[in-house]
Each structure stands twice: as structure tokens, then as C-alpha cells.
């Protein structure tokens, strides 16, 4: 199998002493190269925690995580930094881009950290900025961009190093539904045309319906799983809604309740 990410029995506790939260409870799953996976679940179900342990920002309490053939448990802190730099791309809900840097400088920052030379940096910048349609915005500062443009710039930055895995935590969280959909089209494009493997956390069923595969979390466990297969996105959305109501998640039916909006 061509697995980029393999998670086995990952458990994460927060706190110590008498008050301990079990944010992840013995989770196992894997992600294939070139796939687009969404992780859904109510607020507090452990989505961000899962993403944080995968992105090496947090350590697991038990279990193993393997990314691109490397076991994260074996790496020390410097190796983890280098690993994030070389293998992972990030898109977050907000404060993705550094406000003091221009869009161009933001996008090329991961290459700078990798000590890539000037000419190659310029070439890669051209490639991703054209692919993501932010070529006109390169000299601007983030505050001069709309929310959607900012997230696209963040996408460009996430993929400029050709990472093994792109991680996105509620990337549409600060966007309206029109911009959310546009951003998901961008994700699809990154996934299909640029070959990025994407793991995305969201609580929005509309956003989730763009993925090939959806994992449902509840109380730190995988509750259910959906594969798109040959289905239409509308159909996927309906399935997600069904699972969500079975899950009883409060936030899950959030902004996609109206079928027409899909």
C-alpha cells in the first residue's frame, strides 16, 4: 500500500493528577498518498488534538504515528522541526500568514527555512502562485487581502515545499459559505492537479462533503467512516448529515442545514 500516514492506537491525555481529559482514545487509521480526507466531529471531540499530534506540535501519550515512512516517536525536537519543514504543509483557521510579511514573503518562507537558493525559490513561487491564482497579490500585505485570498495564499505556502502531507484545521472557519466553497475547489485542485495529500479538520458538512473520505470523531474515538467512491458531492453531503444526526453532534449541522446551499 501507498500509505503516507499511519496512525496506530494513538491516545492523548491532557492534564495531570485528578483532572485528566482523554482527548484521543486509541485511534487507528491510515491515509493514502494522493487522498483528500476530512475529519469531522462536534466541538471538543478531539479533532484539533488529532491534527496537532500528527503535525508534531503535540506528542502522543501512547501509540504510534508514522508519516512517509518515519516514526514520529523516534525523532527529537530538532528532527521534528526539520520534519515539519520538509514533510508537512499547514493551513489554519486564522493567523496563518505573518502580518508583517508580504504575501510573497509569506509563501516563500518555508523555502527560506529550507535554505533553498534564490532562483529556485523564485521558480517555485511562480509555480504555486499561478496555480493558486495569487500572482497579483504577491506584493501586498495580508491585511490588504480578503479572507478567501488570505487562505489561498496560505495554501500556496503549504504546498510550495511539495510536502508529503498537507494539514488543514478548520480552514474555512473564518470564511462565509461562498468563499468556503471556493476554497474547497482550491483544495480539490491541489489534490487532483498538484497531487497534494490533504488531511482536513472541519465541523462543516458542506466543507466535509468535498473530501474523498470522511472520518467521524466522537469523544476521542473514530465513530464512523464514509468513502465517497463514485458518488456525487450532494449525495455525500446527505450521507454526512445522516451520520451527524446519528452522532448527535450539536455543532455538526452548523451552516449547511439547508440542502439548497450545497
Amino acid at each position: 500500500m501507498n500509505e503516507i500516514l499511519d496512525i496506530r492506537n494513538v491516545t492523548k491525555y491532557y492534564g495531570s493528577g485528578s483532572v485528566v481529559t482523554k482527548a484521543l482514545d486509541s485511534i487507528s487509521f491510515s491515509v493514502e498518498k494522493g487522498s483528500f480526507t476530512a475529519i469531522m466531529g462536534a466541538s471538543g471531540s478531539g479533532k484539533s488534538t488529532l491534527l496537532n499530534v500528527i503535525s508534531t506540535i503535540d506528542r502522543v501519550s501512547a501509540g504510534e504515528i508514522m508519516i512517509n515512512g518515519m516514526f514520529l516517536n523516534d525523532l527529537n525536537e530538532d528532527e521534528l522541526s526539520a520534519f515539519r519543514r520538509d514533510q508537512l504543509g499547514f493551513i489554519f483557521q486564522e493567523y496563518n500568514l505573518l502580518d508583517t510579511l508580504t504575501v510573497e514573503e509569506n509563501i516563500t518562507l518555508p523555502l527560506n527555512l529550507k535554505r533553498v537558493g534564490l532562483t529556485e525559490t523564485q521558480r517555485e513561487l511562480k509555480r504555486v502562485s499561478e496555480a493558486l491564482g495569487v500572482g497579483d497579490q504577491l506584493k501586498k500585505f495580508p491585511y490588504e487581502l480578503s479572507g478567501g485570498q488570505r487562505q489561498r495564499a496560505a495554501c500556496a505556502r503549504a504546498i510550495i515545499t511539495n510536502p508529503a502531507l498537507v494539514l488543514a484545521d478548520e480552514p474555512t472557519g473564518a470564511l462565509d459559505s461562498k468563499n468556503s466553497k471556493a476554497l474547497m475547489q482550491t483544495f480539490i485542485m491541489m489534490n487532483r492537479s498538484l497531487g497534494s495529500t490533504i488531511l482536513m479538520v472541519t465541523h462543516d458538512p458542506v466543507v466535509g462533503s468535498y473530501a474523498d473520505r470522511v472520518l467521524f470523531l466522537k469523544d476521542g474515538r473514530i465513530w464512523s467512516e464514509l468513502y465517497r467512491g463514485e458518488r456525487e458531492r450532494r449525495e455525500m453531503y446527505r450521507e454526512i448529515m445522516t451520520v451527524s444526526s446519528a452522532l448527535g453532534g450539536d455543532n455538526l449541522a452548523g451552516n449547511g442545514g439547508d440542502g439548497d446551499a450545497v
Partner: protein
Amino acid sequence: MLFKLAVRNVRRQIGNYLIYFITVSMTVSLLFAVNNIIFSRELSAFSENMELMSEGLTAVTIFISLIVAFVLSYATSFMLRLRKREFGTYLTLGITRRNIVSIFVVETMIICIFALALGMIFGLFIYQGLMAVMMNLLEMEFALSAYSLSGIAFTVVLVICIFIISSLASALYLKKTSINELIHGDRKVERAVKRPAVWFTVTLVFFALFLGSIFACNYFCGIISEGGGAATGFFLTFVVMAVSLVLFHIGLSKSIVYILMKNKRLCVRGGNIFVLRQLSGTLSSSSVMIGFLAFLLLFSVVLSNISFAERALLKTSLERNVPYDIMYSADTGSEYAIPEDQAENIIEKYVKILDKKPYGLYTSGRSDFYGQTRYSGEGYEDTTDVFMPLSEFNLLCESLDCEPLTLDNEFFIIANIPEIQNCNMQDVIFEWNGKEYGYKGLSMQYPMFSYTFFYVVVPDEAVTGMEKVIDCIAYDAENGSFDASALREELSYDYITSDGYQSTACDYRIREYSRQYQNAQSAVLVVGALFVSAIFLLMAMAILALKTLSGLADDKKRYLVLYRLGMGSGEQSRTLFKQTFTFFIMPFAVAVLSSIPTAIITNNIVSTVGMDSLASRIYTIAAVIAAVFVIVYLLYYLATYLIAKRTVIYRNY
């Protein structure tokens, strides 16, 4: 309720407040120490000169307190910015603006009370230290000095005034800021600098001007120390120097980042572009402050150098100006002169006379030598040349370890002011009693045996037939301190001046008296300069530290992004170092490097006045002062860096 809230805030923010607190405490302790010196009983008992000193120091402390109040209110605005989110939240929670102002005032008050207490405790020690310096300068026995109630009260009053002024300023800031600005203040990105190229030109031009003003300063100092008048030029130079220093720093702060950003290869390396962008905002928005701080620091460096150099100069010049313990010198046949044996009886009451050397100065009634100087012609008709016989001159030199002269039908000029060196004395052929005497040499290095601008040493036979104009006696007295003021008082007499006024004069120069007077004078200068420099340095460092720390809340988010992008904690530290160090070094570098030209210029002055032996001491003094500045700077920087590192750098293990 509000009080509780404020107490809790201070406790929670203690890390942020630490630097502020330490600076205020140190300032208080310095104020406390100096105020105690002003009111010190030991010193006022010492001599009447101390009154002058106290007045001088009082003026300095009040002036310094004003500056401290101004700087602290500026620093307080950073403290406010550090917490604007918190205050913003209070506002949205329905606490009124007035409540917030009172929370802030109460907080500042708590800090000031603690700082006052701690500062006074520190001050107890610093006072003893400064007194030790003072006693040493005044050559008094060191003993633990008593504290004065008035000194303590004066300190409390000053600190309360400082507190009120800076609180008012902060309250004004809070009143003027809208709720929205408070909450979202950090969203505002600092604007890019317009026309960096123009600013870069400004930088270069004013740097050149600054260098030029250093040379001009050296030039004017030279003229002044040679006795010429250049006060206006000197003053103008100083103004140009200050203005160009400030503008150079403003220009540099506004342009350096843009110049560096032109180098694309530098930018793409690691976190460099991040550092540059971080700096461009901070530097350009604080450019005026950086210029101002550079000025304060330069002022401190120069002032402390001058004060110590002046002290060294005074000490050496005393040996030169009053080479014997007591020196009598009066016009021959003066009607006021105290008879010799009577005067000696008075002297013996204070100090034992060991030896006496009478000598005299004679005039030819002509001006063969004065004719070469600018003290001839109209208005100087009465000025005639003054001569000293060789044997008397050598006798005076003998016990002072000065090289005696040998003359072979020659004369030797002893100059007491530098400009005589530039007159053409070698052209003079002095003819007296039918004999001709030629030029042997000229020196400024001999002690002052006479107070004329210069005099001519000639072989003994040459003074025969000259009129004796000045009677002199050089007394050697027993070593040790005595009440020189009282002795001088007894040897003084009242007389009527030519325009009919009554005046007091003394024909005896008492070395001990001059020394005590100079000591008092230089003690004021040294202690005052130390005090002013220390406060300026503290203020400058505190502003830099607080400004850096006030941006940390925003930096924290940025460093988290860097961390996620894969910048390890080592590289984060280096990035933070580059960012903070550049900011700290901006106002500091030129000011401290200026101690080199300062030392050189001081040295030039000293050697023009004929005291080359002081040179090595002046360089040592300059080096020590620079070292002290660098140490204080590094301490502040280190504290800031460590706090910043703890707050900003993200690591999960």
C-alpha cells in the same frame, strides 16, 4: 473591588513589570543617595564650598526628576499597550473607562510604593558608596555617613511628583484611545516607510556632519585650550553634533531595513526576511525615540569622560599652579602687604614652616619680549618684560625635581599660557648692560613660579640694574591637612581698588586651600555626572527593554507560525536575538563608540595645556566608562532577551 483587581493584575503581570520596576527602584535609589548627599551634615561641616555644591546638585536632581517623569510616562504607554486587550475586555464587560484609569493608577501606585521602598533600601547602600567616592575626592577619612531626614523627605516628594506626572500622561493616553483601538490595536500593521532612499541620504549626510562636528569640536577645543576665544563656534559645533546625531539615527532607523532588503540573497536565508520585516515596523515607528536615546547616551558618555578628565586635570594642574605649599607674591613695596615675620607667625599657627626660598622678579622697563606678543602697542604701554635670575630659578627647581637650566649668554622663556609658544621669541636678541643674550629655548612644562603670562630667565649678572617689581617667597611646610580656609582668611586684607571700591585680597597662595576648593568643585562635577549618566543610561535601557517587551504579545503569535513552519527552537532563538539585538544596538553603538573621539579630544586639550603625563589615564578612564556602559547595556539586554525568549519561543517538550 478595584483595588483587589489591580493587586491581582500587578501580581500576574510581574514578569512584564519587572524591568519597569527595577528601573524605577534604581532611579529612586540614585535619587535617594544624591538627595542625602545634598543634605549631608558631614559634607556641609566640611567647608563652605559645599553650599555651592548642594545647590548645584539640587538643581540637577530636580531636572533629572523631570526627565525621569517624562521617560516613565513614555514607558508607561508601552505597559498600556502590553495590556490593551485586557483593558479592552474590561470595557466590553461594562467597566467604565474611568474605572480602568483608576485600576491603572492604583497599579502604578502599588509599583511605585514598592519601588520607593526597595529603592530607598538600595539607596542606603548606594549613598554610602557615593559618599565613599565623595570622601575620597575630598580626601576625607571614610566613615559610614548619617542619613538625613530632609534627604529622605525630598526623595519621597520627588518620587510622588514623578508618579503624578507619569500617571497623568497614562490617564490621558487611555482617555484618548477608543475601545475599538484598545481591543484591536495590534491588528494595525505598522505602515511602510515612504521614500527610504531619501532617508538613506539623510543618514549619510548627517553621519558625515556628525563626523565633521567631531573634528570641528577638536579644532575649537584646541583653540580654547590655547587661550583663544571660540565659545560661539564651540557651542554651534555642539548643536550641530547633537542635531546630526539625532537625525542620523532617525534616518538610519527608517532606511537600514530597506537597504538590507535590497539584498535578495540575504532575505531568502532562513528567518532573515522575518527579522527585517519585524524591525522595519519597530525601527521606523521608534526612529525619533532612537535618535533621542542616542543623544542621551552620547551625552552621558561625554559627560562622565569630561568629569573624570577634569578631575585628573585639576590634580595635575595643582602641582603646576601652586608648586610650593605656600607662595607669597606681591608688588614690591605694596602698602597693604602683611609684614613677613607677622605673616610667618600666623602661618605657624596652622602648619609648621620647614623651609623658605625668597626670590624676585625684575623688569627692564622695556618690552623686547612683549613686543612679540599681542599684548603690546596701544593699551599695553605699561606692560614690560619680567626677568628672573638663573640662580633663583634653579634653586626653586631644585627641590621640585625639575631640570635646572644652564645659560651661556642666553635667555630662556618660561611660558605660563600656551599662546606664548607661537610667538617669535627666538628672533629677540636681548641687550642689557652692553651684553647680548640669545635665545636658548622656551618651555611650558615648568611649574608656575610667577603669575605673569611669561617671564625670562637670564644669567644673574643680567638683572643688575633692573628694578625689582615683585617680591616672592616660596614656603615648604609640613605635610598634612590643616584648616586652609581659616589661614587664608587671616592672611587676607581689605583694600580700596583704583575705582574706589573696597575689596579683599590675599598675597599668599595656599596649596592646601586650592586643593580643597578644587576637590569640592570636582566632587560636584564627578558625582553629578555619575548620577546624570547613570540615570540617562537606565532610562534609555528601560525604554528599549519595555518597547521590546510590549511587542511580545504579537510576536508570540508570529513565532508560533514560524514554529509550525518548521523553525526549530535554536533557529527561533537566533531569529529573536537578531530582532531584539538590532533594536537595542541602534541608539547605543554610535554613542558608546564616541568615547574614542571624546578621549582623543580630551587628551589633545590636556596635552595643549602641557600635561602629557595624563594621557594614559584619560584613555583608561574612557575605557572604564565605556566598559561600565556596555555592562549595564548587556544586563538589560540579557534580561529582555531572556524574558522575550521565555514568552515567545515555542517548544512543546
